[in-house]
């Protein structure tokens, strides 16, 4: 809906794309470095650039653009309905590093590791 601020749209769709390991938001490396992740500001990627490497991955599968996550079945199915509108990946291929998982736990921020099928 209009009241939600949307995430940045990737400025390119080449190999510089990375996905956030927690919310699966997809942006370029530079976008994460400059503005962080809209869903996960507590990672402070815009303050500490090494965080971008730790919190995001270039290894992901599938891309979906969501304009209205609250009303989209697809967003609900992918469990991104509570996040801001933006481009997301269907799946990331690795889990968040343990120290950052701990950080989530300390801040009472939910984290669900990718499921292995």
């Amino acid at each position, binding site marked *: *809906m209009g*009241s*939600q601020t949307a995430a940045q749209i990737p400025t390119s769709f080449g*190999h510089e794309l990375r996905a956030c390991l927690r919310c699966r938001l997809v942006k370029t*490396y530079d976008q994460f470095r400059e503005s962080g992740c809209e869903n996960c500001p507590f990672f402070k990627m815009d303050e500490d*650039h*090494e965080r971008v*490497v730790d919190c995001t991955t*270039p*290894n*992901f*599968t*599938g891309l*979906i653009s969501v304009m209205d996550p609250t*009303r*989209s*079945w*697809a967003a*609900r*199915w*992918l*469990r991104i*309905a*509570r*996040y801001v509108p933006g481009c997301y990946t*269907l*799946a990331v*291929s*690795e889990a968040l590093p343990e120290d950052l998982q701990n950080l989530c736990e300390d801040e*009472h*921020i*939910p984290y*669900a590791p990718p*499921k*292995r*099928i």
Partner: protein
Amino acid sequence: MPKRWREEDEEEEEFDSKWRRAASHFFELEADVDSDEDGDSDDSDAEDDFIDDARVDEKDKFALRKRHVIHPQIGEDEDKEDIEEFERRIEERYGRKSRYEEEQDTIEVFQQALLPTVTDSKLWMVKCAIGHEKEVAAYKESHVREACKGMRNIFLKNKMVMVPIKEMSDVLTVKKREREFSNGSWVRMKRGTYKGDLAQIVNGDDIRRRVTVKLIPRIDFRALVNQFDGIKIPKEKKFCPPARFWSATKATALGIPVTLQKDSVTGDYFDTVNGMKFLKFKDGILYKSVSIRSIGYKVHPTLDDLEKDHLFPHCP
């Protein structure tokens, strides 16, 4: 409703008894919720329903609530209570944190429960140019047509097909391809100069199907020097150089231009040789980007191997 309230706030004397009744009804309703919150202010779970209705991220509604519900309560309970402090508490309660609580709720729902129903938006298959396949989610075909207007690689003249509800979940399910090589694992090189050598995976890129590996370099210094002098050596004269740790001092002594470069992604510093992107060294070890096809089976290195490779920091 809230609009009426605003009027009342400002022109309090003016409203008649009818207005008052309507307003008091509204007030009671809100007061109910309020007392409920106070009862278990520490128990965030109990507030979930309420938050869901309120849709916290909709700033407008939130602001209204602050003005009309919170305000009267302050007046009743404690005149001296600091409004800012109150607002801070409310912010804390309904602001960022509650959003994460909502996320937590969605995590705990079973995937089965999320399967689409007839009331959900539908998926539509749109004819696209090869390599640009898309499926659009919308309730009606006309919405899809509107959304796709002006987009390249979509052929709107062709008929759109609605994805059957039963197949909707398949569209968005990813076949998990287990990563063959995880970071830190040991492999044998299959091709080229390093064929048969032990290597350790630094990181991988599933999309490009490439990995960066750590290797003990096999650098042919003479060939390198010749190259910088513009001398080309015939192919048959090439030989497999012995595996030796890289030494920037030695290279520089031979006249090979070595520079220290920072990797923009990892922030690590590497020795590089001018004009040779594939030569990247750190702590005497070569960092080489190779295709997944050029690395072989996973190995569990022997003690002998590791002794030789004692500089690898992540020995299992």
